[in-house]
């Protein structure tokens, strides 16, 4: 009985469960309009397309749940693709070394974001907004305005190709497998001591610090994970669509929308990584639904804006309604 009540509360309560209910509702609507969507090839195409955002959402979750923001991910995704194209310049043999460079760059950007936020006590909103502009400008300076070079076939593989000839399904895109791997790793991380400290830090950093947690360290690590997720997303997006000057533009906003749609509270301390990733999937499904309904793609920014406002307003309203005591129990489940 108690379980039932918690389950129903979770579904309509605006927390973790709601996003799954929403996802199911959207899928039902899509199926109603276009039953062909649930055939394997188009379902796989959908997941392939959603994979970068899901991975970014996992990375952004770490940062948001610890009480910060990472607005630099969109610019970082764009920078990674442009760096890859310029350094690889069509040479297959350079693929692996360049992947190494991208990895170091992504981790480096995350580390700098983290250290500036924690050690220098600059608000993460400002740190990462600054980082976004720095990356944006530096890339344009480096390439003279527009990207040059081209990606190798091997580089494009993970984002574009897959395992072919699977019975029933047809092709399983590498992007989907990478998404599942990244998702599993994120879930596992949140079940470790690190994950618990991260949530505790986001919930009440003073209390966490007094109980011996190294809040600065976990927050910095969260930024590094976000940088890593942007690197993987850059690999997938570059592979999926190739290089263009606008890659990654606006993604920081899309991913934050996805995470709050998953019921993760801006300001930290609440929400699960699974729900954050489901939020990304839901947002992509919603855009697919819009397309199936013949709505123009330009409606998306407004919808994203409305979701963010609604989510933040809802969280604020819930906080004022429920006194402090209730939050403690809600917090207990980080995954």
């Amino acid at each position, binding site marked *: 009985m108690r379980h039932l009540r918690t389950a129903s509360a979770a579904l309509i309560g605006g927390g973790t469960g709601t996003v799954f209910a929403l996802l199911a509702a959207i899928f039902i609507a899509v199926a109603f309009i276009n039953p062909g969507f649930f055939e394997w090839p188009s379902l796989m195409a959908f997941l392939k397309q959603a994979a970068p955002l899901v991975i970014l959402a996992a990375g952004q979750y770490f940062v948001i749940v610890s009480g910060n923001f990472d607005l630099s991910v969109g610019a970082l995704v764009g920078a990674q693709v442009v760096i890859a194209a310029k350094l690889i310049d069509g040479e297959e043999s350079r693929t692996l070394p360049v992947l190494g460079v991208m990895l170091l760059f992504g981790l480096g950007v995350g580390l700098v974001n983290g250290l500036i936020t924690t050690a220098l006590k600059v608000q993460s909103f400002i740190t990462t907004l600054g980082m976004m502009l720095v990356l944006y400008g530096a890339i344009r300076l480096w390439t*003279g305005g527009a990207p040059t070079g*081209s990606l190798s076939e091997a580089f494009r593989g993970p984002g574009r190709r897959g395992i072919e000839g699977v019975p029933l399904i047809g092709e399983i895109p590498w992007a989907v497998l990478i998404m599942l791997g990244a998702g599993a790793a994120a879930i596992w991380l949140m079940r470790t001591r690190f994950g618990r400290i991260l949530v505790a830090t986001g919930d009440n950093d003073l209390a966490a610090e007094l109980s011996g947690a190294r809040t600065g360290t976990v927050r910095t690590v969260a930024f590094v994970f976000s940088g890593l997720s942007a690197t993987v997303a850059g690999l997938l997006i570059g592979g999926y669509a190739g290089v*263009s*000057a606008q890659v990654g533009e606006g993604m920081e906003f899309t991913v934050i929308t996805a995470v709050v749609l998953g019921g993760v509270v*801006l300001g930290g301390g609440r929400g699960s990584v699974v729900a954050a990733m489901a939020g990304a999937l839901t947002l992509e499904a919603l855009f*697919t639904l819009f397309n199936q309904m013949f709505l*123009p793609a330009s409606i998306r920014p407004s919808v994203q804006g409305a979701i963010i406002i609604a989510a933040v307003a809802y969280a604020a309203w819930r906080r004022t309604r429920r006194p402090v005591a209730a939050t403690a129990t809600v917090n207990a489940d980080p995954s």
Partner: protein
Amino acid sequence: MQTTRLALASAAAAGLLLTVGCTTDEIQEPETTDEATDAAEGDWFVQADYEEQLAQRDIEPEGDPATPWLQAIEPEWIDTAEFAREGGDATVCFSNASVSNPWRVTGWITMQQQVKVLQDAGEIGEFRHSDAADDDEQQISDIQAFIDSGECDALIISPSTTATLTPAVEAACASGIPVVVFDRGVNTDCAVTFIHPIGGYAFGADAAEFLVDNLEPGSKVLALRILPGVDVLEHRWAAAQEIFGDSELEILGDEFTGGDAAEIKNIVTQYLQRGDVDGIWMDAGDGAVAAIEAFEDAGKPYPVMTGEDELSFMRKWKETGMTALAPVYSNFQWRTPVLAATMILNGEQVPAEWVLPQEPITEAELDDYLERNADMPSLHYAKFGGEDLPGFPDAWRDR
């Protein structure tokens, strides 16, 4: 504690909304989009201009076809003796809207190479330039700074937007120095010459007519557009709507992509999930390859397609053997303004409105243009017109 956290969260949310404001500026909100679409028949479509541009496509331009950047369609030559100055080594100033897309980057390189030639010839001494990074306010102050310096013998302006930049161009004209405007126009004819290719209507019509000619009646066409509200792009779509309206093609939709390859691929993939797409019309070639790949990855036959003379698209076109056309918004126009400035400073006649030729690249010319640009990077424009400049090919290749 609770209240401060709440305040923080709200502050953060407010901040987010601010960034939303910035982001949506480029993608545009639906309200403005609707206006822009409605306006296709109103603000953005001028029947007389449309007809003039379509007619200009068939007019033989004056001048040597080997140097199309010096050709002009039906020029009305005007006297510039009042601006003639002795001694060469003129200081020419250039206020650039931006180099924020590959088309502008290619053109900017060509212009700099042309300037070098003119500097070696002693025509131009110093060449000063400012880049406004697509910011109207910045460009207005850039232009004012050039005027205030009093050192520019001629001022070239590539305006970022039409209406907002008009007073700044008027102020430049009023300062007495010769002004050359090119690419996007302004709402004044005070400049000595306004240089531009035939225009957006011709571009959009070339593309739409190609689809009408190469597709069966009843075929389905998807239109991919970069962003609303830019006159040269709106004119392309307005002309296409005119032509599609009189055809039997079914237009599935027109989508704004921001020129983002991933967005283009997503949109095309979703349309393909919904049904067949037989033709693709694009208002600019950015990301055209991603659209083609969407067909490949979905296992669908290639569409009949119009992109632009960007090499990535032309190479993919050659590789796949698809039926396609590369409409051209003549990139070689970036050479003309500096040449015009030196002509004016020498007191030579220039056309009051300098309309450059603008011809699409057809399948018959594809191999020729690919051959000529074999060393060039993929985001380079085939009709850049700089092959005879001394910096070729390194200046464009090692950008």
